[in-house]
């Protein structure tokens, strides 16, 4: 405790320095959490593999050859081949790009729009708050996967629409989180001080409120990427998301359904990829939650 007080007072004069120390401190605590580091490691590995997919797996995701179809795992095709003779591992690696980017973009959409709506609702309160939150209550009454399904059914499938549908369907959740933390922040003295020196609403929201409300959003965002990947895979699985030959993991599982009785690799491996990714994101998200929780400091 004494050490904490010392660092706080030493860095107090330089605000930027203090901020950097804060994140350093979070990183230090995160590093101590072995499970979170395992999650981070898996994710970094997956991102690297996905980015270098063309180099490592030059056959691509649609290299068909009927004569070599339905192979079980072997030395050339580690995870076997599918019904069109395409390497399942090749497709999975290229699919990692699609699935990971869907997760990332969808969450970006929900954070940006949910965050803005939540910040406005919490900051202005009153009528604005009421209108925004009651409208979001309506969206919350529809289970998010169902909302995503309805949006995709209106817009049609395809990569962009799937990202949009999954992103929109989780806006209300983020809005609620941001609103709650903005309301807590709003009453604090440093906001009052900023207002007293004549800062505009925009400046207060962008420079003072959002940076301080970031912690819960980071946690929710990490877990949200997992949820988005799952939803997108679910959409493709029931044939509403990405269509063949796209190697998105859910679409691959959907393709394996017909052969579920005869050729298990088509079912096992793409699902395993989804599971490991979600698992890693959950580990990291849980770790971040603990690392960012001020109650658990020291």
């Amino acid at each position: 405790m004494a050490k904490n007080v010392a660092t706080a007072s030493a860095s107090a004069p330089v605000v930027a320095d203090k901020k950097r120390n804060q994140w350093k401190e979070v990183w230090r605590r995160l590093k101590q959490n072995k499970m979170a580091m395992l999650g981070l490691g898996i994710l970094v590995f997956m991102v690297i593999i996905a980015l270098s997919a063309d180099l490592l797996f030059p056959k691509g995701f649609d290299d068909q050859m009927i004569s070599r179809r339905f192979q079980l795992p072997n030395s050339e095709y580690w995870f076997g081949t599918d019904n069109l003779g395409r390497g399942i591992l090749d497709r999975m690696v290229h699919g990692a790009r699609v699935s990971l980017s869907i997760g990332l973009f969808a969450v970006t959409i929900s954070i940006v729009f949910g965050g803005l709506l939540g910040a406005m609702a919490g900051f202005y309160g009153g009528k604005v708050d009421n209108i925004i939150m009651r409208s979001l209550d309506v969206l919350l009454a529809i289970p998010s996967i169902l909302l995503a399904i309805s949006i995709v059914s209106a817009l049609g499938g395809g990569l962009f629409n799937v990202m949009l549908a999954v992103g929109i369907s989780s806006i209300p959740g983020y809005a609620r989180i941001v609103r709650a933390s903005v309301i807590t922040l709003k009453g604090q003295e440093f906001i009052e001080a900023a207002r007293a020196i004549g800062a505009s609403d925009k400046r207060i929201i962008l420079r003072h409120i959002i940076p301080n409300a970031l912690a819960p959003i980071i946690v929710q965002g990490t877990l949200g990427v997992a949820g988005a990947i799952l939803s997108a895979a679910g959409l493709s699985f029931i044939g509403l998301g990405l269509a063949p030959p796209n190697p998105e993991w859910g679409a691959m599982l959907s393709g394996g359904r017909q052969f579920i009785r005869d050729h298990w690799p088509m079912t096992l491996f793409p699902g395993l990829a989804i599971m490991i990714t979600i698992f890693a994101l959950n580990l990291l998200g849980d770790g971040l939650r603990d690392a960012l929780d001020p109650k658990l400091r020291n």
Partner: protein
Amino acid sequence: MLRYIARRLLLLIPVILGVALITFTMLYFSPGDPAQMTLGEQAGAEQLEQFRELHGLNDGFFVRFFNYVKNAVLHQDLGLSYRNRQSVFAEVALRFPTTLKLAGLGVLVAVAMGIPIGIISATKQYSLFDSISMIFALVGVSMPNFWQGMLMIIFFSVYLGWFPPSGFTNFNQMVLPSLTIGTSTAAIITRMTRSSMLEVIRQDYIRTARAKGQKESKVITKHALGNAMIPIVTVIGLQFGYLLGGAVLTESIFAIPGVGRLMVDAIKMKDFPIVQGGVLFIAVTFSLVNLIVDILYAFLDPRVRSQYR
């Protein structure tokens, strides 16, 4: 309390109207002409006109929405299916009990597994049991339920032949779908129960109960669980909605004739009235479940109860 329930029921009306408006608007502006898409390329102008007349497609947006709501409220009429001209309400209502049963069984599986495991994990924190069940819980949350369903079909139906891979009429047919839909919720409830119990167990009144010589089993079940249940009940309520949505995928894997499957088929054929009807049914149920959860709070938490007098 009754006044509170009545007020909450009234507040449901704008939410449901909003849900109707959202689904209606989305599908209204979705590209393509429903008449042409349903009847096909070779349909004559007269046929198309007849179709539009029957489904009221010639009116403007507001007139159509107004009629939709009016018919829904006055006659429980949600329009006709584009495809087979059956009443949407009847089509959805016919399949709704199946979906409800599936989601309900999912919750049952989840509660039956999640709460006991969570309690044991919390009372024996950092034990082997705790570590193993927490790893299983993490895996359970991470597993896409449609994939889990497929693996269970491969293992239990194709390989072992214990349970049929499709249908939902007898007990044997219900085992795999219920496990599929309930697993991730079981994992979530396990984690929630554990953390909620851990928080409660450290409270002073638990120490008091132990100090006065109360049996440990009674301390856990009577003193701790009662208070730990409050956040758990919230999660169960929220999960129920999630399961109603998740039923869409589970129904599709196990060929269960529920609302989810009806909707997926309807989407593929651009049969929008059915999609609207399905979303509306599920949203209403979800809202009612949330209301019930809030009422349950009052029974579980005397502090909340006193506020609603």
